[in-house]
């Protein structure tokens, strides 16, 4: 058994077992154990990739272009590690929150029903889909992984069947189904045109074929699909209303990780499969700039905790997409560091928002909570600084790197995006500080303190410590991102690990 398959197989087995267990406490223990084991496997994979190795395994020993390939390079290792750390935290947080009412004064029955109807199992299937998306080396398997991930996310979004869930869930499902239809048709057309679905093999054939308008169309279709999943500006209208709908822990994982899967797929498309395209990355760079500003404005406009955070997530995705498509080594390095930072920041913000909604309701205009919940305020303060990009947080380091790379690369578009990045920082600062002023600051309206269950505040504190450690260990982490970025440049190691040397490409019809 190769360790590469474990992050996919463990959640699959764990989720299946969880469906059979009837006692809530047992489910909690099993889910935590499975996620811990998955995390350990991810650490084992990530540590090996961080030394520059590219791991690969061919399922059932079918050679590369024909069999199912799992590959882990530095990028996959980094994302695998980040998402599985959050997965464990999510499982523990959800284990506690599913025992309590969503809000004080509400009924715990709804969450208990969610627990009884398989919320923990669905979470495991979600992790399976996410891990498989990062590890697969095959375009069609990427589609299958997306579907596993999305079907689990439909379940998690809809479990409970309340009106907002039904309304936003319907939009979420339909948009993702249409995007998936586009994805599968693109995969079919790629096979018809290029003659392969293995990503490394596609890269080899595309490079051998040279520039072709039909290949650009394929790349554009893939960009359209992945940008929809990543919620880049004109395609991300589904996100801000749907991510606040599920329970806090689930929403936090969705916001922190699921959109990044889209970004990951965009990176794979344009660094590995279609590195020759120039117009599309420029378009995505510009859209990233627009996403930043739109997200920040939306975060200012919204008066509800998690709705504001969901828009902040769009802004964060904007930085990320812009950074990935700067097109230089420094840009990719900064984008990867910002990616890790963004995953942690958004996760902490959504957890804090979930706890704040628990004690104060969905709207944040209720003053004076700092005196009652000082630690919640501290967690929010740290995450808000990292979101806006103020020193000494990791957000500052990431954004500084991005802006410096944008200006160093030069050109009118990049300078414009750099301006947007700085401007968005100010807008986000305004949005974050307004929540601070309206929720935490001022004379207390509330008279009695609502207890926050220990496990929930513990998980939030752990996530905040992780976020702060990204700034403390910024040096080694930034160096690591540099290594990963140089691996992505050319992808020679990736192709060498997947394809059998010397095997000639299969002759297609072209």
């Amino acid at each position, binding site marked *: 058994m190769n360790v590469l398959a474990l992050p996919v197989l463990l959640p699959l087995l764990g989720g299946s077992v969880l469906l059979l267990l009837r006692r809530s406490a047992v489910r909690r223990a099993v889910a935590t154990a499975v996620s811990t084991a998955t995390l350990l496997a991810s650490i084992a994979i990530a540590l090996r990739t961080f030394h520059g190795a590219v791991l690969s395994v061919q399922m059932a020993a079918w050679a590369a272009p024909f069999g199912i390939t799992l590959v882990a390079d530095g990028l996959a290792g980094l994302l695998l590690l980040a998402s599985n750390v959050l997965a464990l935290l999510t499982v523990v947080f959800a284990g506690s929150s599913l025992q309590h009412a969503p809000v004080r*004064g509400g009924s715990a029955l709804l969450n208990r029903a969610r627990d009884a109807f398989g919320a923990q199992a669905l979470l495991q299937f979600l992790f399976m889909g996410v891990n498989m998306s990062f590890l697969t080396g095959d375009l069609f398997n990427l589609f299958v992984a997306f579907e596993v991930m999305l079907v689990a996310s439909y379940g998690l979004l809809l479990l409970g069947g309340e009106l907002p869930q039904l*309304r936003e869930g*319907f939009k979420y499902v*339909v948009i993702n189904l249409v995007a998936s239809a586009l994805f599968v*048709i693109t995969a*079919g057309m790629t096979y*018809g045109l290029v003659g392969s*679905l293995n990503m490394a093999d596609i890269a080899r054939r595309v490079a051998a074929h040279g520039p072709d308008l039909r290949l650009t169309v394929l790349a554009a279709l893939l960009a359209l699909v992945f940008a929809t999943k990543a919620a880049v500006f004109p395609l991300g209208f589904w996100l801000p209303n749907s991510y606040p709908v599920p329970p806090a822990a689930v929403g936090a994982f969705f916001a922190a990780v699921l959109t990044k899967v889209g970004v990951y797929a965009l990176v794979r498309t344009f660094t590995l499969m279609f590195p020759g395209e120039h117009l599309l990355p420029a378009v995505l760079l510009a859209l990233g700039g627009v996403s930043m500003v739109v997200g920040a404005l939306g975060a200012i406009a919204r008066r509800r905790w998690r709705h504001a955070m969901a828009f902040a997530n769009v802004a964060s995705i904007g930085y990320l997409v812009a950074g990935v498509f700067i097109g230089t080594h420094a840009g990719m390095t900064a984008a990867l560091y910002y990616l890790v930072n963004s995953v942690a920041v958004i996760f902490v913000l959504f957890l804090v928002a979930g706890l704040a909604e628990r004690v104060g309701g969905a709207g944040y205009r*209720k003053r004076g909570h700092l005196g009652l919940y000082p630690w919640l305020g501290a967690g929010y303060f740290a995450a808000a600084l990292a979101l806006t990009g103020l020193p000494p947080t990791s957000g500052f380091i990431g954004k500084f790197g991005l802006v410096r790379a944008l200006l160093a690369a030069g050109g009118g578009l990049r300078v414009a995006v750099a301006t947007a990045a700085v401007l968005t920082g100010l807008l986000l600062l305004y949005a974050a500080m307004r929540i601070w002023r309206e929720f935490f600051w001022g004379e207390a309206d509330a008279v009695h303190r*609502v207890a926050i269950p220990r496990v929930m505040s513990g998980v939030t504190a752990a996530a905040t410590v992780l976020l702060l450690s990204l700034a403390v260990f910024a040096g080694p982490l930034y160096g690591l991102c540099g290594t990963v970025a140089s691996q992505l440049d050319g992808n020679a190691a990736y192709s060498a690990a997947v394809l059998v040397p010397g095997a000639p490409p299969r002759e297609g019809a072209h």
Partner: protein
Amino acid sequence: MELLLPLLAAVLIGAGVFLVLSRALIRLILGVSFISYGVNIAILLAGEGERRDAPPLLQLAGPYNDPLPQALILTAIVISFATTALLLVLALRAYQVTGTDHVQELADRPDPVRPPAVYADPEYPSVSPEIGTAADIDEEDGA
């Protein structure tokens, strides 16, 4: 055949898009199904040119049709079957909860407002936990 199948795929996807844009949930679901049928035919067409001499395992005389697009279609059919079932359940549930299958009416229905904790004294619940009061709505945006 060369022209018929592409036309069929185009008509199916076009009809699907038209239905997805309509305002009744059930038509929307039919639209999604139509799109997936069109997509399946399109994938079949994508593999049309890929004829090879011999199957990889059996020692038979060629040419034969490339089985890979068919495998892709099989996977896509299974997935779209499951998601269509999910959508149907979702539409049914939405109809049961709201009494309408019209998209606009569903969107206009205000969320049930949950009360902030300070209002919900467990000893003397002044507002229903599930419904809240009109005053709570002012605290939140109407978007």
